[in-house]
């Protein structure tokens, strides 16, 4: 725990980083949850959208395209 306090109070982060690099097991333990979550996400499979969701997503896609056209009309109106 003294080393943790020393780590916290030290102003030179480069020194701390280089010390940590020599302690891979400590780094591994501290980042265990992080690495486990990353691994879980890497094995995530593609989700098939049901018909209802596909309709919603396509509807929103057409909404965006429609709105971009509306914005272009608005800009054209502003110019003229």
């Amino acid at each position, binding site marked *: 725990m003294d080393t943790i306090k020393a*780590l916290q109070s030290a102003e030179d982060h480069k020194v701390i980083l280089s010390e940590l690099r020599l302690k891979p097991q400590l780094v591994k333990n*501290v980042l265990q949850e992080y690495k486990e979550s990353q691994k879980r996400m890497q094995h995530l499979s593609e989700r098939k959208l049901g018909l209802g969701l596909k309709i*919603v997503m396509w509807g929103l896609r057409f909404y965006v395209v429609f709105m971009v056209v*509306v914005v272009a009309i608005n*800009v054209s109106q502003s110019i003229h």
Partner: protein
Amino acid sequence: MILLRETEIQGVKGFENETSADMTNREDTSRALDRLQVLHARQHRRWLPLLWLLIGPGILVMLGENDAPSMLSYAATGSQFGIGFFLPFVLLTFVMAFIAQEITVRLGAISKAGHAELIYRRFGRFWGNFAMIDLLFTNFLTLVTEFVGIVAGAGFFGVPDYVAVAGGILVITGAYSFRRYWSWERTVLALAMFNLIFIPVAVMAHPNWGAVAHSFFTFSPLPGGLNATTILILLSDIGATITPWMLFFQQSAVADKGLSMHDVNQGRMDTAIGALLAAVAAIATIIATAPLFVHHMDASQFGAAQFAQALVPYVGHFGSAMFALGILEAGLVAATTISTSSAYAYGEVRRQAHSLNKLFQEARPFYGILFGVLLVAGGVVAIPGFPLEYIVLVVNVLAVLTMPPAIAFLLLLVNDQEVMGEHKNTWLLNALGIGVGVFVSLAGLLYALSVIFPSLFQ
């Protein structure tokens, strides 16, 4: 209450026994250093230091969204409508922003993945490409307007355009020179605090504080009622608060920072503090330019520099200078966060290194995109005769119009059992999220009606 998981405690206690001289990479050691400090603060129940360690992504994203076009939108609001309806309305938009951004905290903390990566992994390349096109297109346009703001803010002090663009790029680049997420975050946070400079400007405008309080209770007055101009300002103010890049940035930043599921409450506080600070700055900007409305000044075509000049009789030269500085800061911070969100998304999609804890040599495509979009956006602003005013006009509107699909993906992901496990949305959070999506979609449809059938709103 268990403050540390068993493995975390073992990690903290076991370091004295380390004998291996193997090197670990910079990204892991940087993140481990940050996590050790968090573990130490939590273990010793030092809650304020813990909060200090964990805040960042939420405040950055909210103050970053108070970018140059947003502050100009609020300035236009104050100059055209004065103190009234829009003060509580802007507060409401930040409540909606908090609802959306809180989801990204949980997504990032649980999955340790960025938003773009999750969309691609879960929904495939086809839908991922749609999300990316929206993001990169709106991000680029927004970046151009950030440089417009930087040029306008610096121009108030007599700085030439090309010097302002070059100086802005230099300052932003400097923030990345630390090559640690923590250092970059703290630097940009310090810069982002200058967004609060609009508060003293508002005070110097000597507003009627009674009218300010009255407006929050009554949502009135709304001069002119619901016409085409009001609808455009409404949409622009929504787009000044809720945009797709915020979702991508905060989730990626939460993952890069290394927040864990135990840090979600602090992440929520971070987002709430950010929303509150940004809302106060936004409302202050409206109040600061309200004198222009009171004195019937036509500010509908004003840019940042004109607003600062027009405010001189009401807030003095010093107040106007602070207003211009605020626009400059807004452009600088937002250019930093938006270019980072583009770089994060690119790296996640291409499954390449994408962390601010990595050196330039270790993540060339990530930093290449980051600095590349900055240079191109800055270069566009320097082109003589480029119709920048139209880009400024549409960028906030476009941002809100591209939100509905972004919110849909967000809600699908946060309700995904495989992604979130036991941390998926409750029915209340789903209701709030859907409410935000519906509100934004209806606002967009109202805008479309006002453009296609203008006679309905005269």
